[in-house]
């Protein structure tokens, strides 16, 4: 078991290295950071001087190896645009993104599974049919449109909720949280709904389909023949079997929620990592972009580890084989 976790972590490190390499090679084409930093009036000598100070005159492999070496110690360099350490910038922006993403993921998985189970059990009911139709909307509408629609209804017309920003935050050590103030909580509502909606519909449709499949299986029939109440069969026997495939897909989807909150953060001017990345792209701020992509890779590695551990919790058949590996 411990060996398995260690191996997964080792694989994760390799994945991160590969992500860093790909990201780093692509950034050679996003523009010349020196031109952005110096402005129009800089002399060629000034440019060469800055270029060599940043190490940009070095060959690509040297730059990459230096990046990896520093990153291993937690040093992602200095932002070209803001002139501050990238690690500090990320630490500042991290709480906003994590709170948004975790709440969205929670909202999407809890509501998605609950609605999916309901839609499967009351397959022919009016409410279930309506939910299924609504979910089609969720699957097909782009996230930014949902966000703008929510802003229009709840912020512009009804004036219930703020349309941008995090509201007031409270500092707990280096972490700034919006969960402890009324305005912080109110500010979270619309972004969380926007970011979670697509995942919710996806998880719901998947849960429903898997649940219907499981309800046709032999052991459900046998449970009926044993006289087990229908509700127990649905919520105990069938649901747990449904969760195995749902956890796989939902896990990876939730990883992408954490990683790619970019669109939602842009729509709501949310001061998180996504917004940081968008600004960095406009300025060819390579250290920030590289660090962000490594962060995204890290999130996916952690999520897939969590998914594997969730399998173990759900499926006893895997426990023996995993322990043996």
């Amino acid at each position, binding site marked *: 078991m411990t060996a398995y976790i260690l191996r997964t972590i080792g694989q994760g490190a390799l994945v991160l290295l590969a992500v860093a390499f790909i990201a780093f090679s692509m950034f050679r084409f996003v523009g010349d950071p020196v031109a952005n930093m110096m402005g129009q009036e800089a002399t060629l000598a000034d440019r060469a001087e800055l270029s060599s100070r940043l190490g940009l005159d070095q060959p690509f492999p040297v730059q990459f190896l230096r990046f990896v070496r520093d990153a291993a110690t937690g040093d992602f360099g200095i932002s070209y645009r803001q002139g501050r350490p990238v690690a500090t910038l990320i630490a500042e922006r991290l709480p906003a993104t994590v709170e948004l993403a975790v709440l969205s993921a929670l909202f999407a998985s809890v509501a998605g599974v609950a609605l999916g189970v309901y839609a499967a059990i009351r397959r022919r009911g009016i409410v279930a049919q309506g939910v299924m139709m609504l979910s089609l909307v969720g699957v097909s509408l782009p996230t930014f449109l949902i966000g703008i629609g929510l802003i229009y209804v709840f912020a512009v017309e009804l004036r219930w909720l703020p349309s941008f920003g995090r509201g007031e935050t409270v500092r707990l050590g280096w972490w700034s949280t919006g969960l402890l103030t009324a305005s912080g909580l109110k500010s979270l509502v619309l972004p969380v709904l926007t970011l979670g909606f697509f995942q919710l519909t996806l998880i719901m449709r998947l849960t429903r389909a898997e649940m219907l499949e499981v309800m046709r299986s*032999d*052991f459900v029939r046998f449970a009926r023949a044993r006289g087990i109440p229908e509700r127990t069969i649905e919520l105990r026997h069938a649901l747990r079997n449904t969760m195995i495939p749902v956890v796989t897909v939902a896990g990876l989807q939730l990883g992408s929620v954490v990683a790619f909150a970019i669109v939602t953060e842009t729509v709501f001017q949310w001061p998180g990592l996504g917004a940081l990345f968008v600004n960095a792209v406009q300025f060819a701020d390579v250290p920030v972009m590289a660090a962000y992509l490594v962060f995204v890779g890290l999130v996916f590695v952690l999520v897939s580890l969590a998914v594997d551990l969730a399998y173990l919790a759900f499926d006893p058949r895997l426990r023996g084989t995993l322990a043996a590996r």
Partner: protein
Amino acid sequence: MSEALLEVRDLTVEFVTRRGTLRALDRVSFDIRRGEVLGVVGESGAGKSVTGSAVIGLIDPPGRIAGGEVRLAGERVDNLAPEALRRVRGKRIGMIFQDPLTSLNPLFRVGDQLVETIRTHTTLSATAARKRALDLLAEVGISAPDKRIDSYPHQFSGGMRQRVVIALALCAEPELIIADEPTTALDVSVQAQIITVLKRLCRDHGTAVMLVTHDMGVIAETADRVAVMYAGRIIEIGAVADVVKNPLHPYAKGLMGAIPTLTGHEGRLSQIPGSMPRLSAIPPGCPFNPRCPAAFAPCPSVRPDLTAYDRHPVACHLYDPAYAPREQAA
């Protein structure tokens, strides 16, 4: 037959499909007495399993019971409300399915599934239910039940799983067990063990069994009486020795003639020409008449009913004195 535990009268099951209504069971009637083992044989699609499912009320849509009645100890069970029917299932009628590999929930320990079933039907405490689960596992021949009770289904072999399934069916001491091809999915060597366990337990507990199978060997060894099914109807029913040695219906004769024996050197096994009609194309009159070597005038038009003309009930015009003086087929 007042001592009958199960009385099935004119049971008709239909499946509504896009291409019309298919009649899977057509006016099936039979009884099972307390403690009796009734074998039900027939080809695939003859309606054996549907009969079992209909008795326990587990016909899945689009199938439905279209007529007739099922009585358990004199009370009708086919028209009970779902909740009342659920209380009968497992408690008074147990069921064993064909494939032990898929009958158990793979994510729950066998002990949990046993305790769940026991506590559904009794008022036993969790501890007492676990004690009873241990006893049941020991009874079905699982060694070291105190160790195995916390195992998951995948940690058992197929034969052992079928023993667990039998234990599950016996949890609440039902009066009747419907065993739907309980040995078909198992190795031949394991089949005999499972049949032995089933037979012993039902004798010990006085449980009646409806044993659905296409294995005549299992029937001959286990059952007291046997019903032969063809195209959704029972065409012959009687004591096992009687039906196996002296089958009356031409189809039953064909079936018995197709059983290989260890001693006989009769050359080729006999074979019934043609195949069973599909449910959508059951011929009028006697469903067997197009394949029947002894078919005569009334067969294609008049439906024969199960009647005891001679030793045991048979649905065949050959034995109907109304069509005498025609010679009885040898």
